[in-house]
């Protein structure tokens, strides 16, 4: 059994989820995978601690320790999952330091990252809408994970994320005194928005109902336009609010297709949306000192966005990202990898430099290896075959593998690849040990090569590779 952990430090709240799962071989595909993870601890969200304009590192460390203690696990036991600092918290100057702090406290294999909006969108979809999407395989599901600082958007079909995007829309760009609309703080994005809307309000001023409506109206309109693929026509203010463009099929929202599109929401605001749909209303205004309820009620009232909210409710809502991190962020390798020594692992934060295949020219491979040679901490390259993107026995004969490995071995020699620099090849087929053996002439060539197989191709900039346990290696991507 392995422990899977997910920590989400968002603009407003932070949460943690722990699960345990066995790693088993799929009896049909032969691929190693997690068997039915069981969530055994899901922390109630707590306010993300700030100290002036920084995240309060000590308080946050206290959170982590308290969660680990409550779940009764040794932090070093976590070998899958990750921690992510998101939204406006990720904009704080010490956010990357927070990632380091988290990493120091939890397992080697666990990814810790900040300001990774596409990953967050992916995670939120996986943590909330994946099951619904599996249940409705013919529907395109768009999940909007709306938190304090960002709205992370993901389009998925049959449980697979197809596209991600992110907007700086959230409850907490405008902070107010709870129970009032008296402004306490404005994010840089809110300041631009006020200027765009012609609102002349400063700290201490109160917003009127029309002011709030216009802010919420801007947000809803921006969401609709992002979903409708109108980002090329964005105004400057709208463009400023777009962190990652959301690329969708052009005719997705064509009236003839609209019935095949379901929108779900998650995140803190998402949770309020479903509470409002269930008839709940806030006690007074701004109970959390932000515009969360106003935004939620605006979404409920927006017929275009809310048409499917009543009928389709995703899971985990406010903790979607933490669930996504714990349950879906880490893959496991096959049991036969090429690893000259287990002491090479773990490998943290390796840049994923690119992809090669049997069709890549030797020059392209050399170019990539020259780039890899510059990465002192080592680097990773994804390898795929030419048949259905798969390198496996069905697609590759011994002859093909021998030829491909010769090309790479020659490229390593010709590029003068340093012998002490770790190079990880990530392959999706089950050929890791043979591939590595052939490239290194059965270990006689001195390259520090690791080949990890049965890892699917991912559009990510970094990868974390954990220690080998029970013949498998956990692999987590980030920087999407």
């Amino acid at each position: 059994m392995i422990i899977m952990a997910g920590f989400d430090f968002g603009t407003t709240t932070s949460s943690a989820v722990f699960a345990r799962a066995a790693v088993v071989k799929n009896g049909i595909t032969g691929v190693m995978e997690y068997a039915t993870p069981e969530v055994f601890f899901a922390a109630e969200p707590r306010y993300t601690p700030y100290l002036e304009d920084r995240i309060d590192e000590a308080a946050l460390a206290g959170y982590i320790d308290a969660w680990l203690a409550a779940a009764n696990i040794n932090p070093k036991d976590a070998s899958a999952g990750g921690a992510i600092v998101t939204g406006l918290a990720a904009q704080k100057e010490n956010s990357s330091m927070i990632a380091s702090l988290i990493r120091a406290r939890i397992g080697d294999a666990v990814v810790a990252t900040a300001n990774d909006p596409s990953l967050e969108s992916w995670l939120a979809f996986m943590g909330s809408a994946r099951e619904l999407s599996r249940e409705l395989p013919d529907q395109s599901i768009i999940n909007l994970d709306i938190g304090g600082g960002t709205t992370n958007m993901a389009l998925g079909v049959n449980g697979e994320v197809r596209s991600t995007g992110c907007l700086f829309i959230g409850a907490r760009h405008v902070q107010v005194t709870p129970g009032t609309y008296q402004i306490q703080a404005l994010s840089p994005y809110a300041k631009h928005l006020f200027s765009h809307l012609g609102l002349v309000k400063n700290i201490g001023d109160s917003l009127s109902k029309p002011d709030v409506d216009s802010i919420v109206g801007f947000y809803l309109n921006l969401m609709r336009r992002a979903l409708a693929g109108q980002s090329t026509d964005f105004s400057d203010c709208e463009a400023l609010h777009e962190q990652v463009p959301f690329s969708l099929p052009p005719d997705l929202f064509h009236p003839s297709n609209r019935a095949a599109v379901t929108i779900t929401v998650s995140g803190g605001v998402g949770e309020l949306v479903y509470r409002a749909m269930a008839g709940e209303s806030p006690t007074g205004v701004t109970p959390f000192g932000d515009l969360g309820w106003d935004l939620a009620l605006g979404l409920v009232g927006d017929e275009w966005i809310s048409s499917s909210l009543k009928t389709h409710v995703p899971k985990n809502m406010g903790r979607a990202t933490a669930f996504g991190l714990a349950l879906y962020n880490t893959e496991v390798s096959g049991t036969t990898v090429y690893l000259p020594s287990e002491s090479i692992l773990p490998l943290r934060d390796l840049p994923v430099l690119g992809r090669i295949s049997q069709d890549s020219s030797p020059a392209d491979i050399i170019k990539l290896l020259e780039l890899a040679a510059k990465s002192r901490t080592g680097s990773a390259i994804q390898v795929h075959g030419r048949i259905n993107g798969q390198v496996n026995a069905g697609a590759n004969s011994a002859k093909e593998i021998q030829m491909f490995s010769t090309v790479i071995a020659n490229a390593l020699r010709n590029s003068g690849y340093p012998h002490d620099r770790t190079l990880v090849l990530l392959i999706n087929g089950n050929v890791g040990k043979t591939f590595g053996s052939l490239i290194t002439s059965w270990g006689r060539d001195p390259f520090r090569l690791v080949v990890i197989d049965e890892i699917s191709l991912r559009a990510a900039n970094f990868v974390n590779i954990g220690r080998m346990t029970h013949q498998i290696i956990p692999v987590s991507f980030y920087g999407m």
Partner: protein
Amino acid sequence: MRKLTPLAEIHVPTPKADEWYRLNFNGLDHGFLGLKKLLGAADISKAGDRNAGLAAHSELEREVARTILSSLSVQHLFDRPLTDDSGLVDSVMRVNYAINRDAFAEISALSLGEVKNLLLRSDGAGIKRIGSGLTGVTAAALAKIMDTHELIYVARKIEHITKARTRIGLRKTLASRLQPNHPTDDLRGMTCLTYLGLSVGSGDALIGVNPAVDTVENISAILVHLDKLRRSTKAPTQICVLGHMKTQLACLEGGAPVEIMFQSLAGTERSNLTEFDISVELLDLAYVTMQKKGALGPQAEQFMYFETGQGSEFTYGKHNGIDMTTAEALCYGLARRYDPFMVNNVTGFIGPETHLDNFEMIAANLQDHFMGKLLGLPMGMAPCYTLHSKIGLEGQQMATELLTAAGATFFMDVCLNTDRMLAYFDTSGHDNQTLREIHDKEPAPDYLVWAVERGIFRRNGDGHLVRGENWGNPRMFCQTNAELEDLLRLTPSVPGFSPKNHAGPRPTNDVMREIRRHQAVGRAAIQSKLDLARLSRVADFRVVKTKAVDKASHLNHPDFGAELGIAIGGGNATLLTPEHTDIQIVVSDGLSADAVHHNIDDLFPILLAGLKAKGFKLGQHILAPYGRVKLAEPIAKALGTRCVILLIGERPGGSALASRSLSAYLVYHLLDQDEQLKAAKFSGNDDIRFEYSVLSNIYEAGIPAVEAGSVIVEKIEQILRYRAAGNRLESLINPSP
């Protein structure tokens, strides 16, 4: 609960020297020396008895033997306990003499022919009383003089009701043991197969898993999981994991929910001790422990579960000259001691060396069922087959029709007939329901109440039980469609399982065609022959013959393929002279030449490249048609090689793809005396000469051949470095703290 009579207190007559049984018929003298020969000749002709030299050579010889047997008194058989090869009464035979002496006294003077007539004239209670006074040998003798109608007619009158959590064995019922085996013990796959089985009304006798790995940890985990499934579905039944009794006892001590204690039995002490690692003392211990600590507590009136089947004693070469039917009856005499909740008979499981064809399997099943019920056991039946015998689905179904008529307590539910772990073919939940409908039977009563509530069954207007709207719909046990899809995705050989895939109580034609196509591919793989010309293009092989001269002798005599025969091109294979190499590669068909043909092109170049790169000294590669795994040993001895890499086709199961599955046996030859002593100490076997490491499942959906090549190279390097293989090697690589 039964109090066990100490073995020493069971009186067994002193064995007598073999005597001649003679008859002159139609002017010809016939004679049989000793009861064992007489019993063997009186039986229908079955492969195991033919191979053991016990079967009659003609119908006339058989009928003479039956005539003589019919004339012998019960007392005559009682007074002549069959002995082991040392002339002693073994513990299994001794337990068989723990009979009801009063009942015995009532019939002891009757001839077997008269007892047979009495059985046919008696009601169920009368038959049970007679049975309580019989040893297994006498029950077997009776089976041999009864025809098909008689085996069915007498057995049908006997009702044995047993109760663990729920009650089975009522005359009106036909129960089933759900067997959700998974090749890798994947709990999700077991969940899937359990849901599928429950949805067709199976599992009322038991949900029982044969584990792929027999460890306390694994079996406890499966028990906990089955318990969870039972609770979540609320199905009124009992659970069991069919590990070794010692493992189950350890699980029980560790707090795992051992509701039913399982063990396979053989009919001779030698087979039980050396092959099953059990003794009467261990069985007694398990029974007493379950009485005190069994998970069902006092609600269970019975809690033991035994599996038996004709031929295991012969296969192990430990039958003491006793025929298969009689040895099987001795198992029942042993099982009777523990008043089991259920007994399952798996005659047909072993292969053509014991039961060659449908007739042999069907007849043996009817005998077993009769003998078991006569001796007081709740007999479940699993007429089954492997693809290398001449038994098929039609024969299996004929057996079940007859056995249902005979009043079998339960059949197995192996989903769509294909066991995904044991690579054999058993009855399915669809078969059970079909039989229930044809023979007007119902599931066990407690289970039925639940199944009606779940819509699996319903009563129609005239009170008849019919399939309900949820019959065959496993979705009812899942939260979401996706959950069911995920479960099905993990479960091999389920080509369709939803309401639309049923036609009445049967799978739809499309499903059956797919199942049968896969079986046909498996059978073709077994019959496939090594293409020597094609393989000679892969490498420069020398061809070595085994003792099996053709496919038939290879399949029917498993030991032949383990011995060297004559080399092609003249000369005796034993002339293989010492070469003192590090490694000898041997390629053999085993039970699938197709597996060799499909993998060799990709495996061999990688394997050879690796072995050469590592600098090992190799002998010229050997190709050995009609070989078995143990062939590695005589080859290693003849060549004086340190290690044999034997690439051999696995026994095909129910998947066309898996019929191409190859295994690599890495056989370390303990040439060095120090290593031999270490291996002997580690294994407890003083005579050990070889250690084995195995890489199996080399095929597309397992370990691709390309990858297997380097995996073998790495393992060989370890074997030769550590000078060990198998568990000893692993213990040296990863020493326990």
